């Protein structure tokens, strides 16, 4: 952070932004500006170096081949590791979430090394694709209201000992391992399978990322009436019998 400016980095939108992930960046930026912060958003294309001085890094979802290409380039680049070493906060979705783990299954059916920034391993789910509404309880330590979102993935993610589950699902598959967990996180790195985009449906997660990046306990409140209305409607809709 410099001079009240928050540096927001969006990693490889040319490869990983198929599911409206730009929305996560837009929500974080908007909520930061509403608190009087100046925000510099940098979209890093996959042929450009990852800056190491960002405050919050976002990496989104996408198709299988671009996921492999993104993993290859990020491993070669090394910038994200250095940024995390500098205390940066990382928030990842779906394909991005898998990349942050130790390994995942790529488009060629092989085990592809990830970045090892989150203690998870992803494999290919054998059953039906996980598609549909998700409702869950986020880890109580984070002090967040219920998780609402939409999942759409074939992958399944297993957590190792140093990754905490982000949420426990009441509706939907989440990580897909059958233990009811959704996503994973440690002190500074978060991963989830939720779309929506997830931060548009759960704006207080965006606020959490801002608090962590700014190292503050609270942010001035803003008018969240439309977010609230949407959340209520979506939660209600998810609870209707199919």
């Amino acid at each position, binding site marked *: 952070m410099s001079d009240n400016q928050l540096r927001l980095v969006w990693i490889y*939108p*040319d*490869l990983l932004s*198929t599911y409206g992930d730009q929305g996560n960046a837009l929500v974080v930026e*908007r909520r930061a500006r509403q608190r009087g912060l100046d925000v510099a958003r940098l979209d890093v294309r996959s042929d450009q170096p990852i800056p190491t001085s960002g405050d919050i890094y976002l990496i989104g979802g996408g*198709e299988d081949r671009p996921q492999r290409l993104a993993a290859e380039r990020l491993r070669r680049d090394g910038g994200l590791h250095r940024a995390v070493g500098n205390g940066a906060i990382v928030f990842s979705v779906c394909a991005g979430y898998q990349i942050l783990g130790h390994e995942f299954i790529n488009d060629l059916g092989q085990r592809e090394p990830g970045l090892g920034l989150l203690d998870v391993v992803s494999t290919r789910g054998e059953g039906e694709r996980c598609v549909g509404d998700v409702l869950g309880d986020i880890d109580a330590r984070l002090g967040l209201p219920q998780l609402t979102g939409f999942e*759409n993935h074939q992958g399944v993610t297993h957590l190792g000992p140093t990754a905490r589950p982000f949420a426990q699902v009441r509706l939907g598959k989440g990580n897909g391992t059958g233990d009811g967990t959704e996503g994973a996180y440690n002190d500074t790195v978060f991963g989830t399978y939720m*779309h*929506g985009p997830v931060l*548009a449906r759960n704006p207080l997660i965006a606020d959490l990322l801002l608090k962590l990046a700014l190292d503050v306990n609270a942010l001035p409140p803003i008018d969240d009436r439309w977010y609230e209305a949407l959340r209520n409607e979506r939660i209600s809709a998810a609870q209707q019998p199919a």
Partner: protein
Amino acid sequence: MAGNSDPLTPRAKLAVTAGKAVAAASRAAGRGSGSVIGGRVALKLDPDLLARLAQNLDVTLVSATNGKTTTTRLIAEALGAAGEVVSNALGANMPAGITSALAGGSDAKFGVIEVDEKYLAGVARDTDPKCIALLNLSRDQLDRAAETRMLAENWREGLSGSKAVVVANADDPLVVWAASSSPNVIWVAAGQMWKDDAWSCPSCGGVMQRPGDDWFCGECGFRRPTPSWALSGDHVLDPHGSAWPIHLQLPGRANKANAASSAAVAAVFGVPPQVALERMYRVQAVAGRYDVVQFMQRDLRLLLAKNPAGWLETFSLIDPPPTPVILSVNARGADGTDTSWLWDVDYTRLTGHPIFVVGDRKLDLAVRLEVAGQHFQVCDNLDQAVQQAPPGRIEVIANYTAFQDLRRRVGN
């Protein structure tokens, strides 16, 4: 005048008759036009029916993420100069609906068929077309359709054995990649506003360089082909370099691009660009789109936009601020139930327009607009939105089923 002179086999005739009876029953019961269900019954009775019906027609297939219905209509108008045309003008674009449409055209010379992107390869195999028009490929409904690149791959494989002349958009890397397996391609520089699905080279995954109107892969050399036809402002440039003015009643750049591609297709069948373009001028509205209707004593222009590329084009053709805008978004099956695509649409382009929001997913739109920093009003329904709108012709932009709801409400 050539037509379906070979008699259909008894089985095929039975299939056609049964299909028509079912379609008529469906219409009588108030369930749509009956074209899809009639076609399904017909295909069940005779699976080769589509191929048989197509046998005596010069068939053109049209596929794309956006612009299929409009371009099919434009081509059908143009080819009307050279013979009778049968077409699935109502937009039923999967095999059953296509079969139904062709079954109604026993005296036609030309078949101009809109085909859903997922079904193009199969329909091309069944109908042995003379011409295939490929307009664009971009992200559409993520929870229903195959991923965009997989679609391009599917086209590429499916078309590699085809004898058809492929008329393809040189400005869309995914389309170029799909078309380049065909031996017989006519490249049209139709332009491309939405570039976000092709920053990654479809051939090798390298990063695409896109200086100005050109594009090429920095890593493998896959590049924009030299077009023989081009949209240039308000003109179509033909292979001889002649510039033909485009006069359309349909608004916007994308429709000029559709007209350019249509002129290239028409030329394949011997209809010269000047004649083709003159006939295209007759098209005022396509399946309700672009229609200006009167509702509650106001003028409303109905615009359909189904995905980010379509919304981008639509914003560029609406009247300038302070023209009021009504946005309506649903997320039913046919629309795709994931509304994440809203976040790939740049709503800051609506700055200065009074905005009214309706539809099943108006709250998703409300959050989207809020984050875009726009002022807006959420309304219960179209009537309320129209009532609140300040004076002026109202631009109404809606996605697929929301558009159908709208047309029903205004009686269009």
